[in-house]
């Protein structure tokens, strides 16, 4: 987050979502604070992405979602997007827009609808591109980038809006190990800058390494919530996934210090 930006907490109470007449999410409470990363975990079909979309106001829901102490449901789309920015897993963009143009879309929430960019717009775009390590991609065509590069650009687009809350849907899906570590490290950087971050993750090891707290879902209901260390633990994991958790059983990776400095 840039200097002078406000911090906002996210509080959701009793979020219930029905899709096509079928309830897919029951009475879920979510709480996330500035400087904190909250993981949404659970098996496929548990309702993680649905919950995230409800928080972003992309789905109709029952219950309340407050961001910065303000109920967001009655807000017009622009005002809501100013508070919370949603980062999709993949963008549906197929047009030949440059990375700079894609990131500039994030500034829509601040614009008056006229053509030109203000200095504030340009500064925010530069800052977002630099934070997401995407400044070298600025003039490339978005659709021709790798999945990992696209993910960084989508993050930059969300950052350009200066929204204090970031809602990220599986940002590491389909990334190779290097790209994955780079995105996870970026999430920590953003938390350190007092963003409030809610992130859907598939990989439980990533959740342990990167997030502070976790919400574990199964079949649309909360199985466990709390510190990630306590949620990604044998009992809750067996209840949600039907597998046994073995500590320190798998190979791990960490950023190579030399490469990191080169970046």
């Amino acid at each position, binding site marked *: 987050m840039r200097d002078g930006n406000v911090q906002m907490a996210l509080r959701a109470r009793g979020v219930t979502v029905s899709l096509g007449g079928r309830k897919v999410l029951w009475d879920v409470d979510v709480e996330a604070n500035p400087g904190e990363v909250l993981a949404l975990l659970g098996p496929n079909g548990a309702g993680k992405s649905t919950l995230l979309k409800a928080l972003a106001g992309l789905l109709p829901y029952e219950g309340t979602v407050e961001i910065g102490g303000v109920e967001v449901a009655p807000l017009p789309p622009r005002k809501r997007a100013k508070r919370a920015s949603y980062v*999709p897993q993949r*963008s549906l963009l197929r047009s030949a827009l440059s990375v700079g143009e894609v990131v500039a879309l994030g500034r829509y929430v601040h614009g008056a609808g006229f053509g030109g960019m203000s200095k504030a717009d340009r500064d925010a775009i530069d800052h977002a591109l630099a934070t997401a390590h995407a400044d070298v991609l600025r003039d490339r065509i978005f659709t021709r980038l790798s999945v990992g590069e696209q993910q960084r650009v989508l993050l930059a687009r969300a950052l350009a809006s200066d929204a204090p809350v970031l809602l990220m849907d599986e940002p590491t899906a389909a990334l190779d190990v290097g790209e994955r570590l780079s995105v996870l490290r970026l999430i920590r950087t953003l938390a350190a800058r007092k963003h409030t971050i809610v992130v859907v993750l598939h990989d439980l090891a990533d959740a342990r390494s990167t997030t502070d707290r976790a919400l574990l879902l199964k079949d649309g209901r909360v199985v466990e919530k709390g510190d990630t260390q306590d949620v990604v633990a044998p009992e809750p994991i067996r209840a949600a996934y039907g597998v046994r958790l073995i500590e320190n059983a798998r190979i791990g990776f960490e950023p190579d210090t030399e490469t990191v400095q080169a970046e």
Partner: protein
Amino acid sequence: MRLYLLLFLLLLVAGVLAVLVGSGDLSNPELRDTFLKLRGYRLAAAFLAGAALAVGGVVVQGLFRNPLASPSVLGTTAGASFGGQVALFSYGIAGLGGGLVVPEMIVPFGCFVGALGALAILLLFVRVTQDLLALLLTGFVLSALFLSLSGLLTSIAQETWELGRAIVSFSLGSVSGTGPRQLSFALPLVASALVACWFWGRPLDLLLSGEEEAMSMGANVDAVRWWSAVWVSVLVASAVSLGGNVGFVGLVVPHMLRPFAGTKHQRLIPAAALAGGIFLVSCDVLARLIPSRSEIPLGVVTGLIGAPLFLLLLIKLRREHAYA
């Protein structure tokens, strides 16, 4: 900037040709003024209609994220056409409408009533379904409906030779009969719709990533859908009232421009307005150049040029995997 310089240069060339080319003899001092005046109106009508159709094309292609969309997908073009034909028909058979407006304005009013009728049905369905696909399908069905009704009217009109001729020539498209009244009716409508489309340019940019992402970035997707349909309808209704049924402009011109003007709507829309105008003025010059006993209909010329041009663009787009 260089693009605009080129476009203005092309416009100048097309404009000069549009004034000089034609069957009338300009060396006759008695008739020269009349010829020049008629060609001036014609030039203005072709330019306005072309600008309206090209910008209509840009907007629907952005709205549907589909490079194959043309402004006629909304069904309002067929509605405007049918409205114009009904007006011609009822005036020709029974002199209806003559008491309301001066005769040359009967067809333009008919076009607007037809387009607005189609738009009302369209928006009613969109309000119920709230869905882009529904908008597309409703537009498609409306087109088919109004085309059938037009066919029915055309076949009935064949009973009177003159009326049949008038209706067929209207549906083939022409700007030759346009006068100052039609122009001053269409000009403010086209101008305000062009400005309105430009103002919707940024949310239309957001929609290129699909409705969900657009919404997440703060676009009011329902409003964009609704107002795009309204302004595109105003554009096509004006174009049909000026030049009858002219196809392919809204499909081809945006595609030709994107490599030069980019994809962002607020850059693309002014360029498309100019280029669309130039395209239709040039087609109208061509219609007068091709030797024929009566003039080749404008809609035939745009189709003959537009179709092969579009196929070429399709091959190019496929090769580059860059759509819309």
